[in-house]
């Protein structure tokens, strides 16, 4: 080490900057696991298929004569097997865009997701 001078201080300073950069990258990576977890839980808990299935069942109920027993079946089984409070009803036929349709009110709530719909069928 014959001729030492102070030029190396830049290297040290840049080294510190790189270290800080790495630290922030590590923070971001650390967050990604948590983000993935909550996203997946959100997607899995959302009852997309349950709601679609319920809508089809309600339309089927309207089509096949709106029997009270069938309505009770769907409400009771939904509560027991899907932990969902369900209620639905179909009104009298009325003219909508030149066709006679019934207003069907569908309500679904499983404690996490609430879904309400009024559809003319």
């Amino acid at each position, binding site marked *: *080490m*014959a*001729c030492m001078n102070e030029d*190396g201080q830049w*290297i040290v300073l840049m*080294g510190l900057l*790189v270290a800080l950069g*790495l630290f922030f*990258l590590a923070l971001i*990576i650390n967050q*990604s*696991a948590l*983000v*993935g*977890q909550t*996203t*997946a839980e959100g*997607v*899995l808990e959302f009852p997309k*298929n*349950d709601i*679609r*299935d*319920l809508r*089809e*069942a309600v339309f*089927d*109920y309207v089509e*096949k004569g709106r*029997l009270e*027993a*069938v309505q*009770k*079946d*769907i409400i*009771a*089984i939904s509560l*027991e*097997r*899907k932990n969902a409070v369900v209620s639905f009803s179909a009104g009298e036929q009325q003219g909508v865009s030149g066709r006679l349709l019934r207003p069907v009110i569908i309500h679904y709530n499983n404690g996490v997701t609430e879904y309400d719909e009024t559809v003319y069928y």
Partner: protein
Amino acid sequence: MVNDSGQLYTMEGVAAGIIMLLTVYIVISTTSIYTAGDTHIPDMQLEQLGSDVLAMMDTPNAKDLKSDLEVFVNTGNSTDFESTFLNYCNTRTSGATDELHMSANVTYRDGNDIKERQFVAPDDSWTGRESAVRVTRWVQLPSANPYGGVRVRAVLVEVLLWRA
């Protein structure tokens, strides 16, 4: 003449090399983080596949005909139900078929009680520790049905689906 004035440059070069290698490693590894979210994607795909299969089975071939699903449930035909279901979800475009297995229950209301009956029993691949998904479908049965008969009723067909 040989002296040691180049040593500091050598050390700087080594440090710079390590930093560059580290940067490349971090950049490559960030593009492929396997987060907890990714582990649930196969489950979501399986659930969608099962729902689609039940929707296909619940679609009649023509207007005023009954769907396969309704006929199978109403006649208690669990053999055909199982083979149709597995045929739909194991079929691939080419090559060997997929390895999905299933069991099924039917839930119905009897007065104030909710009762459940096994429709298709699980096969030998079932150990109880599979990562199974549940897919369901409402079926409205005519008044002559094996679930208490006497009246038109809505029953819930629940299928457990797993890969083995």
